[in-house]
């Protein structure tokens, strides 16, 4: 049986992240971000993560030519872990014979799990029961899990008074206990917010998120006058810093021919030491690429300090027919 595995990542934005929809004016902003249809909750599309992970993995492996649309300049694409992982097109016979190899990983959209919102008690992280469960978290309220009513919220700390989530006031229905999956429990970033979580009804979540996105206004400056240029004012939105997201990666390694001879030793294509851990399978390539997003970012406005995401802990790994567990 070909290797079939799922990995689940917990990510946190350490900059505002702007994945644009293409510059439409929608409501209050000029440059809006991608949202999940139906729920209207912003997300990071799998396409963005896939492209960034491929590009950064190719740079780490010192074959940047393996990143683009064409792999014509990759000398041995079948021996290149980036091409193997994400797919490639091989041309032989002066370009007359074209063979396309599909990649062996699927990278899914990253969905918002915990969204930071300003409240009268300081920052809190808003989420829903469904989102937590989907991501492998367990939620208990008086011994049993409970979906809050539309106007109420459950908190992970003691409080009886009403609480504001931005401009919205909700009744506090009680205290909930949220436990992260093994392997994420001891992560500093999780522990820092574990007692600042607010669970709301799914129907309220979209309103809370969309009302508290980071919206910035910028204008081009006329260098001669040192003043704003006429008509150059624009607004754009972004997922704010400290938003937690989850995403999945599926490995369907039907070829089972990952070029281990060259990569398991931790060398790049130019025989230099490979930064980070050695790559023993396509999931290592994806992880190495995704880790670089912590340095180089994903999406737009990268040169203005947008786009960095950090992987929190190690991804959860699940083989088909086995229980989900931590990778380590």
């Amino acid at each position, binding site marked *: *049986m*070909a*290797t*079939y595995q799922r990995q689940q990542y917990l990510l946190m934005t350490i900059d505002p992240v702007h994945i644009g*929809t*293409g510059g439409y004016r929608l409501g209050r902003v000029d440059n809006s971000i*991608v949202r*999940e*249809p*139906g*729920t*209207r909750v912003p997300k990071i*599309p*799998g*396409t*963005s993560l*896939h*492209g*960034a992970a491929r*590009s*950064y993995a190719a740079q780490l492996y010192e074959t*940047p030519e393996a*990143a*683009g*649309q064409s792999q014509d300049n990759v000398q041995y694409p079948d021996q290149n872990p980036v091409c193997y992982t*994400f*797919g490639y097109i091989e041309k032989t016979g002066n370009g007359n014979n*074209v*063979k*396309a190899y*599909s*990649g062996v*990983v*699927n*990278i*899914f*959209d990253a969905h918002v799990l915990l969204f930071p919102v300003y409240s009268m008690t300081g920052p809190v992280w808003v989420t829903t029961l469904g989102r937590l469960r989907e991501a492998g978290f367990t939620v208990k309220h008086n011994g049993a899990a409970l979906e809050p009513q539309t106007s109420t919220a459950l908190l992970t700390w003691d409080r009886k008074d009403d609480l504001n989530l931005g401009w919205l006031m909700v009744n506090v229905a009680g205290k909930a206990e949220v436990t992260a999956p093994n392997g994420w429990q001891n992560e500093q970033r999780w522990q820092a917010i574990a007692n600042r979580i607010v669970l709301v009804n799914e129907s309220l979540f*979209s309103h809370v998120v969309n009302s508290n996105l980071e919206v910035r206004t910028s204008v081009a400056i006329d260098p001669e006058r040192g003043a704003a240029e006429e008509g150059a004012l624009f607004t754009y939105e972004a997922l704010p810093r400290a938003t937690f997201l989850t995403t*999945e990666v*599926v490995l*369907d390694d*039907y*070829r*089972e*021919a990952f070029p281990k001879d060259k990569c398991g030793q931790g060398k790049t294509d130019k025989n230099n030491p490979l930064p980070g851990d050695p790559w023993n399978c396509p999931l290592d390539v994806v992880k190495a690429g995704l880790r670089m997003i912590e340095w*180089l*970012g994903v999406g*737009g406005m*990268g*040169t203005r300090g947008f786009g960095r995401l950090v992987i929190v802990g190690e991804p959860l790994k699940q083989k*088909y027919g086995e229980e989900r567990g931590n990778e380590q």
Partner: protein
Amino acid sequence: MTWQVYHVIVRLRSPLHIGYRKVGNVQRTRPYVTGRALWGALTMRLTRDATAPATGSHAYQQIGDEVHQQLAFTYFYPALQSGNDYQVVWPWDNETLFRPRFLSSYQSTALAYPQHAAAEGMLHEVEYISPHTLDTGQPVYLQGYIFAKTDCTLAWQSALERLHIGGERGYGWGATELVQISPCEDDQLFGGVAQFQQSNNSFTISLPKDGRLLAHTKADNAAIIGNLEPLVGREWRSHGGAGQHIAFTGVCFSPGSVVATAQCFTVKEFGVWEA
């Protein structure tokens, strides 16, 4: 030899793109899962489950033939939960309501990461069936029927637990979650919209007068009102690369076409009907 009919519900976990046609830089999706797309997805999963490494075209061809021989299926249609049951929303019932509820598109471009800018000429838009309705955010399911020979040797039920259908799968599209497989106790399909009868080697599906075709249908002499289209697909063959073989099934009436009189159809390969 007899067949068992199963009612299958899967939940859509990510956008689904079933290749249709291209308009400008927009790749349109069909509003349902064709038999060919389902056959391809099942064949891929079953071959990879049976052989490792699954790189030989011959293995795919062999399993693909076995799927044809041991399984048959209807097209799968978007459905919504209705109490404890599921209700298909037919794309043709009210197209102006269906499209804004179920279909959306994603516009993107490849980035040149060293420059952090859009790569030239890479802007494209892909249409998809949304995993949630766009108006009320309800989960979207796919409902259809699978006919399996009683001595079927294919582990298709296990394959349905890891089924990825359609295009853009590398970006996580086409993920499904199996919700239920239940044997049919009567001869009704889709709540009585059609009835099936089985013979030794094939199925016939009967529609009442003014009934709608639920699959592409080859009907040279039948009285049918609807759109005709050449049913063309792309396949991977040992000679050539991905999608380079053009598989031509024939000129068919599209799903949703109306039969003028009560009519019986035989279910053929890829779920295509024949009068």
